[in-house]
C-alpha cells in the first residue's frame, strides 16, 4: 500500500533537523581535503613524497570521508527501506512466475531491509505463501550481495562506475542462480517442517509518519555505522600502509589478470570472511592500485558478502545439505564467471 506523503507539524521539525544536518555534512565533506592535507603535511610536517607522508594523508583523508559517506548513504537507503517491508515484498512477489519473478525478487533484494539473522523466517514466509523456490533464492542472494555498506565503500573508494558494475553483476548473479535453482526442482530438499506449517497470509503492517521514518533511518545509521566503523578504520589503516609502502605492480603476478587461479582463490577466501566486508574493501582498493585486477577484487567482494558461512549455518535449519551445496555451488560458479568476465573485458 502506498500512503500519500502527508507532512504534519512534528514532521516539519524532523525534516528541518535533517536539512540542518545535511548542511553541516556538506560543509564537513567539502572541507575534508584541504584540512587533512594541512594536517598531514603542515601540522605534522610530513614530507609530501615520503612513504609515511603518503600513508598518513591517505588515512587521514579516507577515514572521515568514508564515515561521512557511509552515514549519509545509509540514512538515505534506510529512508527508502521504510517503504519496503519484507511483508510488502512478499505481497509483490506473490503469484509471479519464474523469470520475471526472479528479476523482481533480485531488485527488491536491494531495497528490502534484510539481515541474514532473519533469513529463516523470511525463507519460510516466502515459500509457504507460494513464492517459487527459485524466486525466493533470487531474493536471498541479492539481498546480502548488494549490501549497502559494500556499495557505499565501493563508491567512495573506486567511484560510481565500479559500484554500478558491482550492483549490476550482483543482480545478474542473483537472477541466474535463482533461475537455475528453480529449474532443478529442489523442493524436496527443503526441510519437511517448512511445508507442514500453516500457510500464512497478510501479517504485520505498520503505518509510518515521516517522523517515524526519519527516526528509524537515524537509528539504523547509528546501528550500522556503530557496527562497522572500527573495521573501516582498521581496513583503511592497512590500506594506507599498502598505499604508501608496497611498490607499484608488486601484486600483478599473484592477483593480476595473468594469474588464472586468482579468481577462484578469491571466492574461496571470501566464504569464511563475513562481517569484515567493511574492512576488506579499503584493503582491496589499495591492492588494486598495486596491480591486483578488478575482476578478482569484485569476485572476492561478492563472495565475502554473498556466500557467508554463518548464513549457511542459519539456512541449514530449513534447507537440506544437498540444497545448501547447490546454493553455494551455483552462486560460487556465477561469481567466478563474473570475475573472469571483468578481467577479460576491462
Amino acid at each position: 500500500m502506498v500512503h500519500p506523503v502527508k507532512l504534519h507539524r512534528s514532521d516539519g521539525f524532523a525534516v528541518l533537523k535533517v536539512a540542518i544536518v545535511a548542511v553541516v555534512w556538506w560543509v564537513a565533506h567539502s572541507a575534508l581535503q584541504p584540512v587533512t592535507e594541512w594536517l598531514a603535511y603542515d601540522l605534522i610536517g610530513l614530507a609530501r613524497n615520503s612513504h609515511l607522508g603518503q600513508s598518513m594523508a591517505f588515512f587521514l583523508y579516507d577515514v572521515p570521508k568514508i564515515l561521512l559517506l557511509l552515514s549519509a548513504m545509509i540514512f538515505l537507503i534506510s529512508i527508502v527501506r521504510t517503504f519496503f517491508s519484507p511483508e510488502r515484498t512478499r505481497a509483490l512477489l506473490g503469484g509471479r512466475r519464474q523469470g520475471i519473478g526472479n528479476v523482481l525478487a533480485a531488485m527488491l533484494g536491494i531495497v528490502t531491509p534484510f539481515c541474514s539473522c532473519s533469513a529463516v523466517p523470511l525463507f519460510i514466509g516466502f515459500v509457504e505463501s507460494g513464492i517459487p523456490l527459485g524466486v525466493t533464492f533470487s531474493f536471498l542472494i541479492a539481498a546480502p550481495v548488494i549490501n549497502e555498506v559494500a556499495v557505499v565503500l565501493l563508491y567512495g573508494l573506486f567511484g560510481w562506475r565500479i559500484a554500478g558494475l558491482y550492483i549490476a553483476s550482483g543482480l545478474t548473479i542473483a537472477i541466474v542462480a535463482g533461475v537455475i535453482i528453480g529449474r532443478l526442482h529442489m523442493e524436496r530438499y527443503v526441510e519437511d517442517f517448512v511445508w507442514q506449517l500453516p500457510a500464512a497470509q497478510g501479517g504485520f503492517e505498520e503505518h509510518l509518519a515521516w517522523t517515524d521514518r526519519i527516526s528509524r533511518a537515524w537509528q539504523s545509521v547509528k546501528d550500522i555505522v556503530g557496527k562497522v566503523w572500527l573495521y573501516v578504520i582498521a581496513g583503511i589503516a592497512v590500506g594506507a600502509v599498502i598505499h604508501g609502502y608496497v611498490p607499484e605492480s608488486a601484486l600483478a603476478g599473484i592477483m593480476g589478470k595473468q594469474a588464472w587461479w586468482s579468481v577462484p582463490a578469491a571466492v574461496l577466501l571470501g566464504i569464511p570472511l563475513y562481517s569484515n566486508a567493511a574492512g576488506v574493501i579499503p584493503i582491496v582498493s589499495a591492492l588494486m592500485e598495486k596491480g591486483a585486477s578488478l575482476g578478482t577484487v569484485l569476485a572476492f567482494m561478492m563472495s565475502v558478502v554473498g556466500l557467508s558461512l554463518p548464513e549457511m549455518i542459519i539456512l541449514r535449519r530449513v534447507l537440506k545439505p544437498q540444497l545448501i551445496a547447490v546454493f553455494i555451488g551455483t552462486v560460487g560458479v556465477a561469481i567466478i564467471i563474473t570475475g573472469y568476465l571483468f578481467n577479460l573485458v576491462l
Partner: protein
Amino acid sequence: MLNIKILGSGCANCKRLEAVVRKVVAEKGTEAEIEKVTDYAEVMKYRILSTPGLVIDEKLMSAGRIPSETDIARWLAQASAQQSA
C-alpha cells in the same frame, strides 16, 4: 500479569530486544512474564518475516527491529489497561 514473547532464535538483535524489554518492565514496575520463543515453527505462528518479533499478550507489536523504550512502555501500558478493563 502481562505475557511478553520475544520471537527469534538467538540473533544479536533478539538479545538486545530482550534486554530493552526487561529494562522497561523493571522501570515501570510492570508485572509480566517474559518468554523467549526460538523454535521456528512456533515463531512462524505469529506470521513474521523478520526477527526479532515482540508479542505482548499474543498481539504482535513489532518485527525486524528494536522499538524505542518509549514505544515499548506505551504498549505495556495499553496492554495492562486492556487487561484490567
